[in-house]
């Protein structure tokens, strides 16, 4: 498989701030690849370098086999970009936004009109074709930005936090569209700080923190490698009691103490619950499967969304 994106020791420096501190990446055609990490992890900086709108400060970066510094324009012609903040043209209507964007990519006027209608259909905005952009809801704007990114039929779609700030229903609509694109074979590269989004959409992801990659794998692999099958969450009326790692012997592999709760990582939640009840007298007990959130906590000692 050819690597669409290939990076070695990629860094981005803003003055004295190191936003990206030497990362290695290989994204192959057709996969949905994610960057999972909290605010400030360096996700957007990485995405902007891949989008050829931010020159790397160091390391090597190849996109579609080309050099982003020399061949930026040619590369951008084959990418679709959904930036973190919408950059829709507020002086134009919904459909005009797609038409002119297609023209920027060199499509003919006739082709781009047809394409715009198809894309509006795809993101369910046909009824709003002649509306201004301003009055659209956040979810609609996001969908329009996604449609706009698809106008040139890109080989790779870059999505920087595609659903941040959207309500749950709007998020599901976006996820559904992205899922369809994935099925059509479009290579997706997305960033998120939502573990559910990463789990839903990504075949493979990297956990990013402080400008570096802490771990890499499929969501399942990461959970298997860095967490246990289940987690028992205990909440207390007052402060959580101090307990050691081996307080429960073999039953608990790891303990995390958070401000509001205690997490016991185990492979057998059902067996652990009665024991935990008896020993610690928690106010409430919840048994759940491990998630990427737990992976992140294990890797960085911090929670993903605060």
């Amino acid at each position, binding site marked *: 498989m050819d690597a669409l994106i290939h990076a070695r020791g990629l860094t981005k420096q*803003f003055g004295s701030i190191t936003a990206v501190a030497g990362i290695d990446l290989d994204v192959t055609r057709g996969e949905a690849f994610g960057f999972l990490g909290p605010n400030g992890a360096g996700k957007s900086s990485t995405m902007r370098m891949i*989008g050829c*709108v*931010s*020159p790397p400060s160091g390391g090597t970066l190849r996109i579609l086999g080309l050099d982003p510094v020399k061949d*930026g*324009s*040619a590369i*951008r*012609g084959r*990418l679709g*970009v959904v*930036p973190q*903040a919408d*950059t*829709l*043209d*507020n*002086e*134009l209507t919904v459909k*005009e936004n797609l*038409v*002119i*964007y297609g*023209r*920027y*990519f*060199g499509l003919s006027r006739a082709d781009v009109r047809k394409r715009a209608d198809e894309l509006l259909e795809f993101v369910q905005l046909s009824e709003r074709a002649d509306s201004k952009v301003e009055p659209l809801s956040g979810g609609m704007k996001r969908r329009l930005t996604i449609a706009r990114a698809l106008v*040139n039929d890109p080989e790779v779609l870059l999505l920087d936090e595609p659903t941040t700030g959207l309500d749950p229903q709007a998020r599901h609509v976006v996820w559904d569209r992205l899922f369809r694109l994935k099925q059509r074979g479009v290579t997706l590269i997305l960033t998120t700080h939502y573990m559910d989004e990463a789990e839903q959409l990504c075949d493979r992801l990297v956990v990013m923190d402080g400008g570096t990659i802490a771990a890499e794998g499929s969501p399942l692999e990461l959970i298997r490698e860095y967490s246990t099958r289940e987690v028992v969450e205990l909440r207390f009326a007052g402060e959580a009691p101090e307990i050691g790692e081996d307080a429960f012997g073999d039953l608990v592999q790891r303990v995390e103490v958070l401000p509001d709760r205690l997490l016991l990582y185990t492979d057998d939640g059902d067996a652990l619950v009665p024991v935990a009840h008896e020993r610690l007298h928690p106010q409430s007990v919840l048994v759940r499967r491990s998630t990427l959130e737990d992976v992140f906590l294990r890797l960085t000692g911090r929670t993903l969304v605060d």
Partner: protein
Amino acid sequence: MTAFALASRTRGHLLFERNIMVYRRAWMTIFSGFFEPLFYLFSMGYGLGHFVGKIHGVSYPHYIAPALLASAAMNGAVYDATTNVFWKLRYGKVYDSMLATPLGPVDVAVGETAWAQFRGLLYAIGFMVTAAALGAVQSWWGLLALPAAMVVGFGFAGVGIGVATFLRSWQDFELVQVVLLPMFLFSGTFYPLSVYPTVLQWFVRVSPLYNAISLVRSFTLGHVTWYCPLNAAYLLAIGVVGIAVARRRMAGLLLT
């Protein structure tokens, strides 16, 4: 011609296309500032001119009409190049979205210059038609005033775009006015250079508007001399420098 030629050779013409899309609906707004030079022609040319008599054997309205035509081209170009480009750069995020496509900073700089020049040309045409109807154009050379206005528009559009990339807030537009108003009043608009002492004359000669007025006036009065290509070269040069500066600045501001 000028920026249009550059725009068609780069992807800059796509910015022109975008702006047409915008103004197709809001074409009325493009006429803000359109009438200003006409007011000057009436009040100064015909009103004040009544007491002035002739300058160099030319009636006063005939004398100031080409200057006002050059100012019209300047105003249209500068207004668009500063106000609109500043807004798009700092607030509208219009260029951010363009730079994610095959377009680059040079396309943006050239395309917006072409558009600003076009606005200047529209103002110049509007003024020309009115002035000609009033008989304020004396020579067939006057027809060359419009291509001259394009050169004027190009010079000021390029400089305007270069300047726009340095503006940080709307307050900074005061500074643009601080330069534009005296330039308008003292660039040989309303009286010949010969009223100034020699030192001051040389100062005025480097004013872009002086060169613009000198060029347009040569054509409308039919006094075409070897100064004309010099004036034109000067205006083209400042336009090109402005575009080059804008290209660099935009890359620095947007491609971080």
